[in-house]
């Protein structure tokens, strides 16, 4: 790290300013100049508004009484504030909606559907990265190519298969399907991360007599925690937010269907019941939003390693 000489100013000031490379500082200054151009700032602000206002509207509405939602726009809330939990109460615990049941279903579906594919993909990625065998490249390319195949081509035969095995309509089909569909991307991403680990580390462990299983658990796994977190968030968001797999395999029964399926059904059957839709949508959104905000750093890293690495 290059240390810039401390400028001869007040010490309190230097402590507050992070040391930067001069070129970067200049670029930052240029960026500031760029944003000070009124058009550029206007465009940025408009984009930011369009991307936030719809969600704010939903959130505000979910706390307004049903009567108000249907007779006046949510923006009137700012001049005429009203606040109620009645919508949430009805959508979560009401006899007809009972989102709380579906909330549990979403959790029960998501946890194994995240843990299982990550574990399997870690092992597969290890084999692709550190075990030499014939046909490795071909197999890896095949697995890689599978990640682009649309799920749609697998759904009907899989469902017929589950029916034959008499496990249709249970959590097992959803877990199994999600795990299978996640494997190609998971293997590819984790393989990318594994390849970044210095070979000398693995070599050293090998010289010490460690077998592949030991190397995997003792050497690689601790180093891969950020990668696992990155893919974990991917998979979590994907499974929690998924509708296609849920509708196909979990059907519409309150025994297995997740929140998204229930929400979509509500939107279809009671499309104008905004007091339920707004609160319901927010119930379905809250967990992924919290997870996402908490682990954003890892998520971005995952995106970048899968996206722009090649």
């Amino acid at each position, binding site marked *: 790290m290059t240390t810039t000489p401390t400028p001869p100013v007040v010490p309190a000031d230097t402590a507050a300013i992070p040391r930067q490379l001069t070129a970067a500082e200049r670029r930052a200054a240029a960026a500031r100049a760029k944003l000070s151009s009124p058009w550029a700032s206007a465009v940025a602000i408009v984009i930011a508004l369009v991307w936030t206002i719809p969600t704010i509207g939903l959130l505000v509405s979910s706390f307004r009484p049903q009567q108000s939602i249907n007779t006046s726009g949510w923006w009137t809330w700012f001049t005429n504030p009203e606040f109620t939990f009645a919508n949430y109460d009805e959508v979560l615990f009401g006899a007809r909606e009972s989102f709380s049941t579906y909330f549990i279903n979403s959790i029960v579906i998501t946890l194994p559907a995240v843990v299982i594919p990550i574990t399997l993909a870690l092992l597969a990625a290890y084999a692709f990265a550190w075990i030499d*065998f014939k046909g490795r490249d071909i197999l890896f390319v095949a697995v890689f190519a599978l990640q682009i195949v649309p799920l749609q*081509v697998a759904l009907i035969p899989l469902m017929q298969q589950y029916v034959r095995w008499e496990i249709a309509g249970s959590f097992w089909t959803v877990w199994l399907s999600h795990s299978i569909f996640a494997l190609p991307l998971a293997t590819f991403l984790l393989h990318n991360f594994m390849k970044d680990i210095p070979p000398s580390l693995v070599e050293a462990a090998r010289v010490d007599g460690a077998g592949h299983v030991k190397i995997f658990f003792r050497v690689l796994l601790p180093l891969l925690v950020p990668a696992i977190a990155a893919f974990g968030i991917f998979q979590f968001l994907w499974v929690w937010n998924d509708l296609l797999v849920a509708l196909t395999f979990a059907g519409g029964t309150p025994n297995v269907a997740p929140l998204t399926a229930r929400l979509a059904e509500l939107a279809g059957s009671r499309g104008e019941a905004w007091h339920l839709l707004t609160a319901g949508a927010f119930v379905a959104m809250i967990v992924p939003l919290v997870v996402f905000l908490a682990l954003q750093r890892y998520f971005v890293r995952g995106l970048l390693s899968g996206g722009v690495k090649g």
Partner: protein
Amino acid sequence: MSDPRSPSPPPADDSAGSTVTVSGHDTPDPRLLGGGPRPSGSVRWTLALIALGVFATVAGAAFLLSAFGVSPFDEFSVPWPNWLLDTTTTPEKLGVMVFAIVLFVVVMALILLSVDRARAVPNWALVAAFLGPALLMLAFGLLYPMFRTIRESFFDRTGANYIGFDNYVTMFSQNEFQIVLRNTLIWVLLVPILATFIGLVYAVLVDRTRFEALAKGLIFLPMAISLVGASIIWRFVYAYRPDQDGVAQIGLINQLLVWIGFEPQQFLLGAPMNTFWLLIVMIWVQTGFAMTVLSAAIKAIPDDIVEAARLDGLTGIRMFRYITVPSIRPALIVVMVTVTMTTLKAFDIVRTMTGGQFETSVVANEFYTQSFRQGNFGLGATLAVFLFVLVIPVVIYQVRQLRLAEEIR
């Protein structure tokens, strides 16, 4: 690809014998988990070969049989205990969930332990243990179904009678399906271009400004929201109330229209514009992804290039056009391709917002409707195959890119 990191056991040879030089005793060692560093290698080697052979045979046979319409997994009926499948109460659900995870962990631990215990584990056994479960699941859950779906697309709605290319003819000739194809084309053209463009412009605008983190976070957030949730958010934005005295608009856009003196619109009903209102939702969700990846690419542009361009007098839009965009071309392509794929497969938005009515359906939605609503498996399979055909060029392109990347490594 020559890999300098070859593992300590010699690379496994196809022909038997090269790794089994230690085999001294001929009686098979029955202990799978035990076994010390002693010459049980040959046994394990054989076992692994058998396992691999079984796997290859099952997979191969499955593909072959699927071509003739036979399902190899048919005669597999187990009297499942009821508590595994029928879960009604919360404790039951959580119990089965924990059971599933524990079962999975135990099975994997057994597999790994069995290859860890012995010193002379042959390479094939290792590969089978590490790679086998994943490959088996992929073969069962993606490859085999793919072949079945291709086959099914040549059969009628029940899958009983072979009808040749009739489904494909239906898909391309009937009016309602032509609308579906047209809509899909509009989605696939507009969403990637607009999402990438807006994401890029925004990334450039907020790059290295004081509010960068917050500004990016705002655009980023929709990525955490399900497409169903996003659809509801936007349906509320488009909401319509009849234009009468005493009736206030509750949808933001219609209110804006009323404020500036226009009549409120039924955005989701009028074709063909309703397709555009729908795909805005997809752009809204995907721009965050584009922005994140492109922002990272912009930050990776070497400072001296930017510096040199500035010395040459490039600023503003010309800097963007001649320096920024060419420098991040690979990232741009990746973003476009990824967004295209996502757009092609997504059906959630159409299904939640209009249910595919009012001429808004796309191929992915029509697949669901035909397969699971109309019960027309043949036509559903055909639509799925069509989606698959559409992504094949991308698959080939991606594989090429992967090869290039591997060479650089």
